[in-house]
């Protein structure tokens, strides 16, 4: 409008000049009163134009001021966001759907070939007064809806935040990575050695301009790889803490900008627990180890876990590695067999984005979307992983062993290969092949159709939308 009125003003000036010239040329014939009338007419026109311009200016100012306070709604590939004009209060609705299928090469395994709705989540997150953040994630993929995450985060400073509710314990590297962006469709065996989600309270923050992230939490406590229930069944609690450094994160041009390393740990006691639900799983999600011995083994005593971890991303290349040692006391409920057991696992995974996009802990953003009409295909990434896990031999010893030899292995070694196709920022398809072999002592014949009755070879496919 400003440009328009400027153009009109220019036109008016030209007209005025022309009129002025005409007036001057015909000055001999025009009377003084005619010229005066013309001048007045021009003045009035100029005033009208100025008023028009000013009213437009005021309207723009009002609109700008109103826009600052008016609520906003935005629908992007990050979800549907409602926010107040100043952005201090917000609600973002996000979603995650993972439609999987699993195909086992050996028909004798316990698990069936299946299509499975792995995750179907609605994620509601936002903030009040900028610093009071919240997140609620219902899960609809199970037999009954459940709450996966629900927490309040009070952001006193970026360096000092308090979070309370149900969320991931700050220990495992891959465990803390979003479900939608990991290299593979399923996390490695290491994640089943470390605690998953739990109910508790945590202090955390980013220090030294995001170069160091810390978290210290106090939780109900869970067994390896498990999610905590809404309430505890014992008075004992677990501490969890993690320090993770990304010292070159602000040096964007450095080859080390994508380097991160740290250590996560937890410690506590689970006396009196009646859970006993620990399960170490293969990539195909079969349980190759659990305390399934006679007398319903339960965790009973002190436990700790330590997990050194690191990742490195450089351009399209990504590497992630972690190690876990988990120690816990277990016993039969009748107390006839009580042991302190120490299990270990590690994994190393790598990926390479064939189409050249940057890889990262938070995923890959394709440069183009899959669109046949435009001849664009999105991004492709190849991934590989090797993992090994061991179980304390004490789990199988004693008159009433805590685990049964014929259905549980004392170790598992696996590798996986995969291809991820990023059709857009929100849609990803992937196919993975996993091979897992089990440590079964000579002379032990695994039960027929038990998960460890032969190597596991499985294809897992996924079509996912995450926004």
């Amino acid at each position, binding site marked *: 409008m400003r440009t328009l009125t400027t153009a009109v003003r220019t036109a008016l000036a030209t007209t005025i000049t022309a009129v002025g010239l005409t007036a001057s040329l015909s000055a001999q014939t025009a009377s003084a009163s005619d010229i005066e009338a013309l001048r*007045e007419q021009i*003045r*009035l026109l100029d*005033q009208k134009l*100025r*008023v028009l311009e*000013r*009213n437009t200016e*005021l309207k723009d100012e009002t609109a700008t001021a109103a826009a600052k306070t008016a609520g906003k709604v935005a629908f992007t590939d990050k979800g549907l966001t409602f926010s107040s004009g100043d952005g201090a209060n917000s609600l973002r609705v996000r979603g995650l759907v993972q439609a999987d299928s699993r195909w086992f090469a050996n028909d004798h395994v316990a698990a069936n070939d299946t299509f499975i709705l792995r995750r179907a989540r609605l994620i509601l997150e936002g903030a009040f007064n900028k610093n009071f953040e919240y997140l609620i994630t219902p899960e609809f993929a199970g037999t009954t809806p459940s709450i996966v995450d629900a927490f309040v985060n009070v952001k006193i400073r970026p360096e000092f935040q308090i979070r309370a509710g149900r969320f991931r314990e700050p220990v495992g590297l891959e465990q803390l990575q979003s479900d939608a962006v990991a290299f593979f469709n399923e996390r490695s065996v290491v994640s089943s050695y470390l605690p998953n989600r739990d109910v508790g309270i945590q202090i955390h923050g980013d220090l030294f301009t995001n170069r160091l992230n810390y978290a210290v939490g106090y939780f109900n406590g869970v067994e390896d790889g498990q999610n905590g229930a809404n309430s505890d069944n014992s008075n004992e609690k677990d501490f969890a803490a993690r320090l993770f450094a990304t010292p070159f994160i602000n040096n964007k041009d450095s080859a080390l900008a994508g380097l991160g390393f740290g250590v996560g740990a937890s410690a506590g006691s689970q006396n009196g627990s009646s859970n006993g639900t620990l399960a170490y799983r293969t990539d195909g999600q079969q349980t190759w180890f659990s305390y399934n011995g006679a007398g319903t083994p339960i965790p009973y005593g002190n436990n700790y876990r330590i997990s050194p971890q690191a990742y490195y991303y450089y351009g399209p290349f990504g590497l992630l590695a972690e190690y876990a040692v988990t120690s816990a006391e277990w016993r039969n409920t009748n107390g006839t067999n009580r042991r302190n057991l120490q299990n270990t696992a590690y994994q190393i995974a790598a990926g390479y984005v064939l189409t050249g996009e940057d890889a990262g802990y938070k995923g890959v953003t394709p440069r183009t979307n899959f669109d046949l009409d435009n001849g664009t295909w999105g991004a492709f990434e190849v991934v590989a992983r090797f993992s090994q896990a061991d179980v304390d031999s004490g789990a199988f010893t004693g008159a009433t062993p805590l685990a049964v030899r014929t259905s549980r292995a004392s170790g598992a070694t696996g590798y996986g290969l995969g291809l991820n196709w990023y059709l857009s920022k929100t849609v990803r398809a992937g196919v993975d092949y996993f091979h897992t072999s089990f440590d079964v002592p000579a002379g032990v014949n695994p039960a027929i159709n038990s998960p460890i009755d032969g190597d596991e070879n499985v294809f897992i496919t996924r079509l996912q939308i995450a926004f």
Partner: protein
Amino acid sequence: MKFKSLLTSLLAVVAVTAATAKDIELLNVSYDPTRELYVEYNAAFSAYWKGKTGDTVTVKQSHGGSGKQARSVIDGLKADVVTLALANDVSAISKNAGLLPANWQERLPLGSAPYTSTIVFLVRKSSPFYGKIKDWNDLTQSGLAVITPNPKTSGGAQWNYLAAWEFGRRKYGSDEKAQEFVKSIYKNVPVLDSGARGSTTTFVQRGIGDVFLSWENEAFLAVKEFGADKFEIVVPSLSILAQPTVAVVDKVAKRKGTEAVAKAYLEYLYSDEAQDIIGKNYYRPTSAAAKAKYAASFPKVELFTIDDAFGGWTKAAATHFADGGTFDQIYLKK
């Protein structure tokens, strides 16, 4: 030994003072034309307070149409003090948000009005109407463009409106005729800014209009800044005694722990130093000394008060500026 003890004591006093000195921040939410006044006053008060307590006070200023500013405070703007154009706007904060008591005007001298002002005409010398505008009734001339802000958002505009109304009532004998008179003035208003400073921009910088109904201090500033060759101040035969009022926003100040300094900030407006600054900035001071000093600066004009002519702000606001009031009747039907 005595000298040593004295020195030790002095050092202790200095150390204690240094250790307890505070940095305090106040927010003064004011109306449009007071920017320059409070820039100068804030500096003076900070120096005074530093000398008195050792604390460093920084006063932040917020300006806009008086009514709009009051609404911002009601909606949550954390003002320690308000210095608004109308007592009614301060009362609105008390009534609608309960941030200060209803008797706030009794807490400071002169009904919490440490300075006054009035409404004058600023006439453009290049206008064909120059020389033809002497009083309120000249504002109804056909073709004349009058600049005044929106009384719905601007305190200054309400003073303008009421001054014109009272002139009309006295000249033509009734409220009905006064309404017709004011209506004929508003027929000549091409732009309604939300505040007085916006109207100054419209008139002075954008070159719109023949006459601007202006706060006296704004008129003086415009002449000073843009030259007496461009504008002339015309004083009508009758005008209104504008009494901008000030108040501590108790609940906000209490929450921020600034009650004492906020109170002192307003009380200091009545001091000799502040009254001098007020006079220098073309507001009419209230202390006898400053009044005498600046008497020659201000034109003589018959002034009436809102209480005398309209029975106070509450009544005037309800009759003229509330939804459906006389302004709505005049302007919506324009």
